[in-house]
C-alpha cells in the first residue's frame, strides 16, 4: 500500500463498519445472554424455547416466510416471463405497476387490506354485505399482503435472469423441434433455476424481517419481528427481546449465506460465444392471451390496493362515512408537519452520505488489494441480511450509554439510515466497477493522477448510474423505513412512517391513507428530481445515457429487507 490516503480511508471505513454494524449485533448477542440473576448463560433462550407456546413465533415466522417465498416467486416468475418473453402491449405499464410495492412503505398493503376486507371494509360491508367473514387478521391476511409486497423482488431477479439467457438458446431448442411448452420446460425453466432459488431465499429473508405488515395485520398469529419489539417496548424485557432478535437473525443469515455463496455461484449465464441479442417473441396467440390476462389481473389487484388508499385518503371516515373531505390532508400537514419535515431532513442528509460511502467501499473492494478485504465486503453487506428489528434493538442497546451515547439524537437515525441502506449501493457499485476495464484507471494513473484523483475524475463518472440508483434506493428506504427506525425515534425527531402506524392504531384509516399518499408523493418527487439531475433534459441532448449496469447492479440492487 503505497498511498497513505487509501490506507487511511480503509482504516476509517473498517472502524465505522465495526462500530455501526458489528458492535450493535454483538450487543444484542451479549444482552441475550444475561440471565435473570445477572449471570451469563443460555437461560433466556431455554426459557423462551422450552414451552411450545413460546416457540410459536419462530415456527410462525418461518412458515409465513416459506409460503410467501413460494407464492411470491411463482407470481414473480409468471410476471417476469410475460414481460420479457411474450410480446405484450403495455409492457412498460405492467413493469411500472409491479414496481409500486418496492417504493412504498411496507404497511401500505395491510392498510389497503383492512380498508377493503376488514370488518368495516368496503368489500366486506358494501359488496358482500357482511355475508362472508373474511379472516384477514392472521396467516391468511399476512400471506396475501406480503406476497403482493414482495413478489417484485422475484420479478426483478427473474426478469434479470430471463433477459440474461441468450435468446438464441431458446431459438435453437425451437429450431430442433421443441414446441413453446417444450422450450419452456426443457430450456427456459432449468436455466432459471438458480434465479428461482435466489428469489425464494430473498423473499424468505424479506418476509422474516417484515415488521410493518404483521404489526398491523398479524392478529394472534405471532411473528418474531413483532414479538421482539413488543417484548422490549411493552414488557421492558431487554434480554428476552434480544434473544428473540437472535433467534430471528439465525434463519435470515442462513438464507443469506446460502444465497450469496452457493446459489449465486450456480448461474449458467455467460457460457458460450457472443450472444446474438435478437429476441424472438413467443407470439402464439393463446400464450399471448393468457399472459395478457395474468398481467392485467395482477396489475389490477395492485392498482385496486393503491387506489383504495388514494380514494380512502379523501374520505371522512372509512368504513362509516364515504363523504369527500380534505380534512385528512389538513391533519397530515398540520399535526404531521413536523414528521414530514424531520423525515425529509434526515433522509436528505443521509442519502448522499450513503451513496458516496457505498461507491468508495465498492471501489476499494473491487480495485484495491489489502488484508481483510473480504471481511470488509462481507461486513458491509451484512446489514442487508439482518432484519431491521434486530438492527434497531442493537442500536438502542449499543448506543444508549457512554462511551457512545446517541439515543434521542438525529445522528443515531442518520447513522442507522446510512449503514442499513448502504449494501444495495455497494452491490450495484461493485457490479458496475467489474464491468469497467481496470486499464482505464491504470491509464489515468499512468498519466500522473493519484488514486483519489482517478476515483473522482474517471471512476465516479463511469459508475454514476450505479451511484444515482443507489441514491434513489437510499432515499426511498429512508422515507419508507419502519422496522429498525421505530426503536430509535424520539420525541425530538419524528418520522412519518411512525405517524402512519399511530393512525392505524387509532383506527383512523383515512388519516393513515393520507399519510401514505404523502409518503408516495415524496418518493416519486425524489425519483423525479434525481432523474432530472442525472439526465439534465434542459441541456441540449442531455447527458449521454450510460449503459445500465447488469442484473446484479441494476435490478437486484433494489432488493432490500424491511
Amino acid at each position, binding site marked *: 500500500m503505497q498511498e497513505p490516503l487509501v490506507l487511511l480511508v480503509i482504516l476509517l471505513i473498517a472502524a465505522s463498519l465495526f462500530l455501526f454494524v458489528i458492535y450493535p449485533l454483538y450487543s444484542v448477542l451479549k444482552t441475550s445472554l444475561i440471565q435473570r440473576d445477572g449471570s451469563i448463560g443460555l437461560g433466556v433462550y431455554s426459557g423462551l424455547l422450552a414451552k411450545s407456546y413460546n416457540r410459536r413465533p419462530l415456527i410462525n415466522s418461518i412458515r409465513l416466510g416459506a409460503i410467501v417465498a413460494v407464492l411470491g416467486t411463482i407470481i414473480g416468475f409468471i410476471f417476469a416471463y410475460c414481460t420479457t418473453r411474450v410480446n405484450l402491449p403495455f409492457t412498460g405499464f405492467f413493469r411500472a405497476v409491479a414496481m409500486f410495492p418496492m417504493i412504498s412503505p411496507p404497511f401500505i398493503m395491510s392498510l389497503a387490506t383492512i380498508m377493503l376486507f376488514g370488518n368495516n371494509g368496503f368489500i366486506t360491508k358494501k359488496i358482500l354485505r357482511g355475508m362472508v367473514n373474511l379472516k384477514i387478521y392472521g396467516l391468511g391476511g399476512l400471506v396475501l399482503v406480503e406476497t403482493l409486497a414482495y413478489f417484485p423482488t422475484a420479478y426483478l431477479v427473474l426478469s434479470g435472469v430471463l433477459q440474461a439467457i441468450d435468446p*438464441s438458446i431458446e431459438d*435453437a431448442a425451437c429450431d430442433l423441434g421443441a414446441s413453446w411448452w417444450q422450450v419452456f420446460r426443457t430450456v427456459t425453466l432449468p436455466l432459471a433455476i438458480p434465479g428461482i432459488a435466489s428469489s425464494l431465499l430473498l423473499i424468505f429473508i424479506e418476509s422474516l424481517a417484515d415488521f410493518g405488515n404483521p404489526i398491523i395485520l398479524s392478529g394472534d398469529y405471532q411473528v418474531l419481528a413483532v414479538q421482539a419489539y413488543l417484548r422490549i417496548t411493552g414488557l421492558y424485557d431487554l434480554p428476552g427481546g434480544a434473544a428473540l432478535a437472535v433467534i430471528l437473525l439465525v434463519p435470515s443469515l442462513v438464507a443469506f449465506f446460502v444465497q450469496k455463496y452457493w446459489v449465486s455461484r450456480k448461474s449458467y449465464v455467460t457460457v458460450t460465444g457472443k450472444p446474438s441479442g435478437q429476441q424472438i417473441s413467443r407470439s402464439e396467440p393463446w400464450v399471448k392471451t393468457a399472459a395478457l390476462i395474468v398481467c392485467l389481473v395482477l396489475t389490477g389487484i395492485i392498482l385496486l390496493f393503491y387506489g383504495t388508499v388514494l380514494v380512502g385518503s379523501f374520505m371522512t371516515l372509512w368504513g362509516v362515512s364515504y363523504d369527500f373531505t380534505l380534512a385528512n390532508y389538513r391533519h397530515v400537514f398540520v399535526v404531521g408537519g413536523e414528521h414530514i419535515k424531520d423525515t425529509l431532513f434526515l433522509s436528505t442528509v443521509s442519502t448522499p452520505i450513503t451513496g458516496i460511502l457505498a461507491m468508495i467501499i465498492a471501489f476499494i473492494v473491487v480495485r484495491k488489494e489489502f488484508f481483510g478485504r473480504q471481511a470488509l465486503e462481507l461486513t458491509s453487506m451484512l446489514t442487508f441480511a439482518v432484519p431491521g428489528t434486530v438492527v434497531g434493538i442493537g442500536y438502542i442497546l449499543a448506543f444508549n450509554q457512554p462511551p457512545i451515547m446517541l439515543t434521542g439524537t438525529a445522528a443515531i437515525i442518520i447513522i442507522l439510515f446510512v449503514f442499513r441502506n448502504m449494501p444495495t449501493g455497494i452491490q450495484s457499485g461493485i457490479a458496475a466497477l467489474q464491468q469497467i476495464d481496470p486499464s482505464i484507471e491504470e491509464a489515468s494513473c499512468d498519466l500522473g493522477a493519484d488514486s483519489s484523483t482517478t476515483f473522482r475524475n474517471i471512476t465516479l463518472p463511469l459508475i454514476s448510474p450505479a451511484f444515482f440508483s443507489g441514491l434513489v434506493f437510499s432515499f426511498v428506504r429512508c422515507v419508507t423505513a419502519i422496522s429498525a427506525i421505530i426503536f430509535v425515534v424520539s420525541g425530538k425527531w419524528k418520522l412519518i412512517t411512525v405517524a402512519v402506524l399511530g393512525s392505524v392504531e387509532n383506527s383512523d384509516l383515512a388519516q393513515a391513507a393520507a399519510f401514505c399518499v404523502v409518503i408516495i408523493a415524496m418518493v416519486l418527487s425524489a425519483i423525479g428530481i434525481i432523474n432530472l439531475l442525472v439526465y439534465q433534459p434542459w441541456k441540449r441532448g442531455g447527458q449521454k445515457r450510460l449503459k445500465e449496469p447488469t442484473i446484479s447492479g441494476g435490478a437486484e440492487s433494489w432488493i432490500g429487507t424491511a
Partner: protein
Amino acid sequence: MDRYSVELIDVVKVFRDRSGAKDHIVAVDGVSLKLIQGELLTLLGPSGCGKTTTLRMVGGFEMPTSGKVVLDGKVINDFPPHKRDTAMVFQSYALFPHLTVFENVAYGLRMRKMEKDAIVAKARHALSLVGLEGLEERQPGSLSGGQQQRVALARALVVEPKVLLLDEPLSNLDARLRAQMRIEIRKIQQALNITSMYVTHDQEEAMSLSDRIAVMNHGRIEQIGTPQEVYAKPVNRFVADFMGRKTTFLDGKVMGFDENLMHVSVMDAVLPFERVSGINTGDDVEIVVRSETVDIVPPGCGTFPGRIIHAAYFGSQVLYEVDLMGTTITAEIPDPQEREMFTQGSEVGINLKTRSIHVLPRANNGQIT
C-alpha cells in the same frame, strides 16, 4: 428440375422501429433464391445487409412481410421454427448450458419422440462425424470454442434437416481454427449431400466453401453465382469493390473492338481487355484493378510510370501502395524473395495483367442479374 430444396420468392422483411411506428427498416428488400438438393449457398455481404434476416426467415425466426419461403415445394411462411424441417448452427452456438454434450446433441431427437436406442446411436454417430467422441458427458462450458462449435454442428446435423442453416458459425474462432473448420464443414456437407445456406461477411470463407455465393447489400442480392463468377466477373461496382483484397477503379473509354478483345484507353495508354457484352465503342467504363492484377517492374519498363508510397513485407508477398499519376493503387506481389524489392519513394514501372481484369460500364447502378 423445377422442384428446389429451398426457394425464396420476392421475400421482403420490414422491421418496425421500436422507438416509433413511423420509421420502418427494410431489412430484406425483395430477395429471390433457389437452392438445389445438396447445394451450399452462401449469403455474403457487409453487416446490416440483411443476410442473417434472410437466413432467419428460412429458419422461421422471422416472418416475411411479403413473398414466399418454399421448402421442398411447400410454402412454409406461417410455420413456426419447430414445425420446419430446418436446423440452424447459431453464431453464438446457443448450446444448452445445463445439458451435457450428449444431451445437447440428443435434444432434437428427443423432441421428435425417437426411441432411446436410436437416439443414442444417432447422437454418437453425429458426434463422431465432427470428431468429438469421448466428450459426451462434458458440459458445454468446459469445452474450447472450437469444440463448442462442433457440438453445435453435430446438434444441427443429427436431426437430418432438409436444409442446414449456418449463421456466421466460425466468427468466434481464431483465424487458424476458422480455416480448418471451414474445410471440415464443407467435407461433411458434401458427404451428407445436405442442402445448406451459409451466412458470412468473410469473402475468403464464402469462396472456399460455397457452390454459389449471393452477394447482398441493403437488403438486396447484388449478384448470385459461383465463386469464380462473383470474383472475376462482378456485375457492378459494389460487388467488384466488396470482393478481393483491395480494388481500385480506373476510368477508361472504349476505343474499339477486335474479335474477343476490347481496346480501352486508360490514362495515356490503350489496353486490350476481354470483351464484355453490352459495352459499345465510345462508352465510358471502369477498370476493376484488384491488387493481384498489378505488377511492379523496374522504372522505364512498365506500361505506366509510378512511385512507391508505402511497402509492406508479408513474407509470402509484398504489398505496395503505388502512386499512378495521382491515383493510389495497391499491388500485391507474390514470392518477393524471387524478385527485386522496391523501397518507399522509388520510381517504378507498373503493368496491368489485363487478362485478369474485368471492365464495368460506368455508373452502373447495381442491377440484379
